[in-house]
């Protein structure tokens, strides 16, 4: 009895902490408010859950949420239901956005949040809300649109996130990720599958992204934000920036195609010393090409797809272009296409 009381007190005191124990307790107590909202009382000045709703859902449910303000945290769990909680909204509604009806689990859910109890729900429009915490099945597809608040998504299958100035953090995404932010940083870690990350003026960081799908692509683009990539397992990696730096660090995938383009920013690749690749690098207007790797001249090799694989070989140095191979340079070698209008291209060995 006393243990239950302690658990309840802990739950009320820190419902939004990310600690494992607190999260486990919240999960163990989940489902109490299924299908209805509930209010809880603040204890000791800590934030509390002011609204909550739970709805049965398919494992592959698609969840939609659009918030004018406030942070969004999405986590995956093993239950086939969606739970939405807020610490400052007065009402949350998990509205079915499909043709299913109860008691069938929902396949598509829209999260509607209202700050004021009297505020009408606005399906299809962004909610004027506070912070939102969502627990969803692991196979879920999450589509979040935010404004100034941050978005954090972890453990789901697919995610599409868009913010104006809020940061986006993606972790352990299983299949595919799309993130766009005008002025927020995008960070993606420990995930797999295809990824498309775009920002206008903030940084993009991607680290340790694997994939089992040979066709999965990794794409990153910014206008003036730096792009830092490391340990990507994709066979097709593309990054471009108008005037900021692009950094890549890690081993190259056999047969992989890496395309990095920058107008005026530098491009730096830090690769293992035993890397084997074909290189097609060009600085167009100014800048320079600096390489720690010995580049050998090879006969011209015309690719089947000249758009993605421009000819490698021929003259080693010609008109700002450096082409050749390093390592074995066989068919298993990766292909690096580096291009900058006025930035520096740097190939350096990993220490």
């Amino acid at each position, binding site marked *: 009895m006393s243990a239950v009381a302690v658990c309840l007190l802990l739950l009320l005191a820190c419902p939004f902490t990310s600690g494992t124990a607190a999260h486990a307790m919240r999960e163990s107590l989940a489902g109490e408010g299924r299908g209805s909202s509930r209010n809880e009382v603040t204890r000791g000045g800590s934030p509390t859950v002011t609204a909550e709703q739970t709805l049965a859902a398919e494992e592959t449910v698609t969840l939609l949420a659009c918030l004018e303000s406030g942070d969004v945290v999405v986590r995956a769990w093993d239950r086939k239901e969606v739970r939405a909680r807020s610490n400052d909204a007065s009402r949350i509604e998990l509205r079915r956005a499909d043709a299913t009806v109860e008691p069938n689990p929902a396949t598509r859910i829209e999260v509607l949040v209202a700050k004021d109890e009297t505020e009408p729900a606005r399906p299809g429009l962004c909610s004027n809300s506070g912070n939102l915490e969502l627990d969803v099945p692991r196979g879920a597809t999450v589509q979040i649109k935010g404004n100034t608040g941050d978005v954090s998504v972890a453990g789901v299958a697919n995610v599409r996130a868009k913010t*104006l100035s809020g940061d986006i953090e993606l972790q352990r995404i299983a299949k595919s990720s799309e993130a766009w932010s*005008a*002025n927020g940083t995008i960070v993606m870690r420990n995930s797999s599958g295809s990824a498309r990350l775009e920002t206008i003026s903030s940084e993009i960081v991607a680290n340790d992204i694997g994939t089992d799908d040979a066709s999965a692509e990794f794409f990153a683009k910014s*206008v*003036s934000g730096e792009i830092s990539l490391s340990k990507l397992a994709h066979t097709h990696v593309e990054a471009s920036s108008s*005037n900021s730096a692009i950094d890549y660090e890690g081993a190259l995938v056999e047969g992989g195609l890496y395309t990095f383009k920058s*107008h005026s920013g530098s491009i730096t690749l830090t690769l293992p010393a035993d890397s084997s690749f074909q290189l097609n690098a060009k600085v*167009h207007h100014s800048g320079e090409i600096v390489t720690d790797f010995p580049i050998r001249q090879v006969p011209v090799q015309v690719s089947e797809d000249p758009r993605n694989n421009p000819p490698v070989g021929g003259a080693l140095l010609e008109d700002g272009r450096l082409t050749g191979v390093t390592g074995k340079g066989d068919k298993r070698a990766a292909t690096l296409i580096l291009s900058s*209008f*006025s930035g520096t291209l740097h190939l350096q060995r990993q220490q």
Partner: protein
Amino acid sequence: METCLDEGTLQAYLDGELSPETLNNVALHLAACAACAQAAHAAEQELAHFNAAFAPALSANVPTAKLRARLDEAIAGMNAPQRGFATMPAASRLRSIYASLVASLTTFTPRQATAFASFLVAVALVVVFFALIQTPDGQKTTGGEVAGNNQPSAPASSPAAPVANRETPDAIAAVTASSGDTKDKEFDSPAPVRVRRDDRAMFVKAGLNNRQPARTPVDGGNAEAGNTTVAAAAKPEPVLEDEKTYISSIASLTSAIEAQGASGLTPTLRAEYERNLAVVNQAIISSRVAARRNPQDTDAKEFLRAAYQNKVELLSAVADQAQIASSRD
């Protein structure tokens, strides 16, 4: 060899006051003409210098009051030994003041004399400036000096008469094009003012200085003719096959943003957008110049295409946000 854009058109372009069609032509020209791009960039700096230089003279009270105080002080000092000054007749007092002024000029320290001379020069410039902008059309301009085209000058006209009744269509076109669609309402002049390049530069700069809202064409015919003239002056050759599509998209997005207003954006975000817009504009200019130098340079074309794409995406983001903000309001 393309004719460079006149200053008025450049200024109107920077202000976002051109019609979409004219904007297309000017943007195309700017992308190709490094000199014009540089001139556009320099225009704002010139304006800042202009404002700084004329601020003392244009702000009516501050220097005048200071000078008057100094003069009064000097006069009081010089007349301190004199008795009965207040009781002197008005004419005598004026003569006395005049004599004191002349005397004080001769007794100024070199520094004071320099300051006074600077003030006189500034006042003279202001007088000339206002005299020029308020001079009726045809009385100050000379034939063949209309900026941006080589058409003969229009006949002199009465400022009170409607434009369409006073001048031939060609002349109207010349006037409109050369004035960059500016409207002399800003200076309380009832008719379009055809001015020479230098004069009009002052005109437009002063308009910026006054932070006037977007100018409207004098009439539809004038605006259309003006656009045609500008287009004829620019005549840029597209470097990319789809360049016109890009430019058209950019013009549409720009118009949409202007129509909706960007007030919904936070100042920080607006600043970010503007900074990034400058980045992509610079990328467009540099890669376009390279592509024009060597039309066989596929890399330069790719860079240009990427830069255009970036600009379209950037403006789309701004337009989206502006639309959201306006719907919210």
